[in-house]
């Protein structure tokens, strides 16, 4: 009886409040179908009343929708002229609506229309929710590697600026060595050191993804943002490390290769895990920082001389005012991330160690001429900058506030390059064998 063709209920339901009764305006097609069936509305009503159990929920829905329409000004509340005849008949009874919907077969309300939130508050909030959902959807990114982004990603993964500083210190170590400057060996040592540093930094980031996510300083790293997968990062690390270490071992000398491997091992397997376990991580990190100039020296000379250790000592001592000042202002981040740094767990020790090592730099500079690395002018010309950093470290020790920590940190950034430059200018000129042979004979002639 009700098997009319195309009796699907589609489109938007509109509700007309009239004297508290609900009328419904439906699509013209449906009404046309209903008329075609030659059924009067009254007979429809009678048939519908039988199905009481089903209309209770729908009636509730209609009641709420009515409330919504009343409270909202935007909805159209006028029926279309053609449909008014139907509504005037149907509007006599509330349950007409339910009946009509339930009894017409194959009426499948579209999920987007009828499955609307029942709660009127929900309906009012929906535009905001939709907006929020839209904004959120914009923040979702496809995990697809864009090849054009890869250089930038690799630069951030390998901490390129830090690597450049490490290579600079290695180059300084090479230049300070008392041998003739060999550009080929110099290039190979620099490239090898750079690649080793890239490896170490990549593996460090690979280990620390969840911790980096929780620190402001590191939350935009490539692995945290998912720009590359962990496997990709490890592959990059291997692709840098294997050629780098091979270059150092075969192209320079095995000692330098060994030192490069030691640096990578100490940084990735000792320093990185220790950061979360004990404050000794800072000392291990200082050793890691001290190795590159030693590598530069051994690349030039092939042996581990006291001069190499002195340069390493400069870097080792310098790390403490540098890092302790930096970590002082990141105490909250480190603590939340679960990092055990002196600045968090042993603040007094942190300040003391920074001061101790800043003053120690003055002593180390005095060792320069003693070990024949530099001339006697070096301790004198380096005294002003060493005194200045010691002064800032002393202020940091006394006051322990963010301002002084920041000053000390920024001073350390220019102090190290300056110190190395001065050492280079005061480098002890090496005496060649010929010159050495000529000098005594000239002395004997003079006599």
């Amino acid at each position: 009886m009700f098997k009319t063709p195309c009796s699907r209920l589609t489109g938007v339901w509109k509700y007309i409040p009239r004297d508290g009764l609900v009328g419904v305006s439906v699509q013209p097609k449906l009404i046309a179908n209903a008329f075609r069936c030659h059924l009067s509305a009254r007979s429809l009503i009678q048939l519908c009343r039988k199905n009481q159990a089903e209309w209770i929920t729908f009636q509730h829905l209609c009641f709420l929708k009515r409330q919504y329409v009343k409270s909202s000004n935007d909805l159209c509340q006028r029926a279309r002229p053609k449909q008014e005849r139907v509504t005037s008949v149907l509007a006599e009874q509330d349950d007409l609506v339910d009946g009509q919907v339930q009894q017409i077969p194959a009426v499948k309300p579209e999920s987007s229309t009828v499955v609307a939130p029942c709660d009127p508050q929900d309906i009012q909030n929906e535009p905001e929710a939709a907006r929020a959902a839209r904004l959120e959807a914009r923040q979702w990114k496809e995990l697809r590697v864009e090849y054009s982004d890869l250089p930038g990603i690799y630069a951030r993964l390998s901490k390129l600026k830090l690597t450049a500083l490490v290579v600079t210190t290695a180059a300084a170590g090479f230049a300070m060595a008392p041998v003739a400057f060999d550009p080929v060996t110099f290039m190979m040592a620099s490239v090898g050191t750079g690649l080793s540093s890239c490896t170490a930094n990549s593996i460090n980031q690979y280990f620390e993804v969840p911790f980096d996510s929780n620190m402001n300083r590191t939350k935009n790293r490539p692995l945290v943002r998912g720009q590359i997968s962990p496997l990709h990062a490890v592959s990059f690390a291997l692709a840098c490390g294997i050629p780098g270490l091979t270059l150092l071992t075969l192209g320079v000398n095995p000692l330098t290769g060994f030192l490069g491997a030691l640096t990578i091992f100490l940084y990735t397997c000792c320093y990185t895990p220790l950061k979360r376990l004990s404050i000794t991580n800072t000392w291990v990190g200082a050793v890691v920082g001290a190795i590159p100039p030693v590598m530069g020296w051994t690349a030039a000379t092939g042996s581990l001389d006291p001069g190499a250790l002195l340069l390493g000592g400069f870097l080792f001592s310098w790390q403490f005012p540098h890092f302790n000042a930096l970590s002082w202002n990141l105490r909250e981040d480190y603590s939340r991330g679960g990092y055990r740094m002196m600045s968090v767990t042993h603040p007094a020790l942190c300040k003391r160690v920074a001061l101790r090592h800043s003053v120690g730099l003055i002593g180390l500079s005095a060792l320069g001429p003693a070990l024949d690395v530099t001339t006697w002018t070096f301790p004198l010309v380096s005294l002003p900058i060493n005194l200045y950093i010691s002064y800032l470290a002393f202020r940091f020790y006394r006051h322990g506030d963010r301002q002084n920590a920041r000053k000390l940190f920024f001073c350390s950034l220019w102090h190290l390059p300056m110190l190395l430059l001065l050492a280079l200018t005061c480098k002890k000129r090496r005496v060649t064998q010929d010159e050495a042979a000529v000098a005594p004979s000239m002395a004997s002639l003079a006599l």
Partner: protein
Amino acid sequence: MNVKTVGCLFFRSLCPCYTYVPLPLRSPCRGHRQNTSQPPQHDRRAQRCGFSPAASSKYDWIGPPDRFSNLRPIIYHIPENETPLERKLRHLRQETEDWNHKFWTNQNITFRRKRTLSSEEMAVFYKHFLDKNVKRHASYNREWYRRNFTITLLMAEVALHRTWRMLTGQGRRTSREKGKST
């Protein structure tokens, strides 16, 4: 329907758009499938939280940092011909993500509770916080390193399998074509 909506909203308020089902540790993976013939259970879940990737997308999707754990959720793509190895990898990654999320949510909520102290008192609080949680952090580290290694090794295995399948698959296809043409 009302109960479900309320339940969904409740969970959304706890972990918005991240865990849209109650969080057992071994939760079934969320993911999005390409073909619509499969029952779209994961899509429906994703839709409830306001985002679902386009059906044609073949990649995983990563979202904004969660407001509690600061970790970024990932919706994994489930390919049509997913091998058991790939499924194992996806499950492991999903589980690790949920486990990480739980740990860091807990950590950050505990941490944020003490926001309103002065800087000296905060320094004391930081020290106390770290000292109190030594064992917990140490065991988390160990577990995280173990999971990270396992995931990476599995990823390497899957990548090798895919490469092998592509090479042999191509070989099989060309020989089949040759057979057809003759």
